[in-house]
């Protein structure tokens, strides 16, 4: 395994992800788990609806992972993103990097999630008790 990318409507399991990156040759694993918050700017969030332009999203995630591999000298990257309807507490994204020094592991993990949030065509709509809004759509 080198780069494992998945966009799925199924719940994400951390244990499964760790199994995929498991590598006895590596001395460190860094994980970022993005979860659904139950409030935004004082409004209670009841659920999120994620949608995705899948062919382009996979391409963009692949590019980001490729950049991270060459920039940080790490060996393995896993990025799994869930789409569909999620409720507070659900895991929306898991990023795992392994094999490298811990500085590179922390930096590369941050690089991947920061770039994913900026470039990858995935969108979420927040549904509140009293309305809904596409996140970040308007200034």
């Amino acid at each position, binding site marked *: 395994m080198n780069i494992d990318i998945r966009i799925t409507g199924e719940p994400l399991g951390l244990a499964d992800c760790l199994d995929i990156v498991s590598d006895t040759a590596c001395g460190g694993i860094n994980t970022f788990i*993005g979860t659904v918050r139950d409030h935004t700017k004082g409004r209670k969030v009841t659920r999120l609806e*994620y*949608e*995705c*332009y899948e*062919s*382009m*999203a996979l*391409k963009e995630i692949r590019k980001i992972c490729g950049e991270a591999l060459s920039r940080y000298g790490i060996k393995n990257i896993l990025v799994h*993103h869930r789409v569909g309807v999620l409720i507070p507490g659900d895991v*929306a*994204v898991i990023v795992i990097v392994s094999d490298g020094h811990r500085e590179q592991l922390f930096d590369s993990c941050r690089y991947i*999630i920061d770039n*994913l*949030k*900026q*470039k*990858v*065509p*995935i*969108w*979420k*709509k927040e549904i509140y008790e009293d309305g809904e809004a*596409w*996140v*970040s*759509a*308007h*200034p």
Partner: protein
Amino acid sequence: MKIKILAFGIVKDIFQSPRKELEIMDHADVATLKKVLEQNYPELKRLKTYFIAVDQEYATGPEILNAQQEIAIIPPVSGG
């Protein structure tokens, strides 16, 4: 020429459809497409920003369009 446009997120709401066909002059570039879209759908101008993707790659403006490409509107992304 007639081009097909994919819409996602808030743009799907603006179009009231996940895809639209649009008549645009032959050899139009991406910047021209944005102008035509904004004339037809002024709400696009109220977005924080939006990009056009051509064949699953972000376009910057001068790219020449043809009817065979996969053209998509990418409103501000919010994954993660």
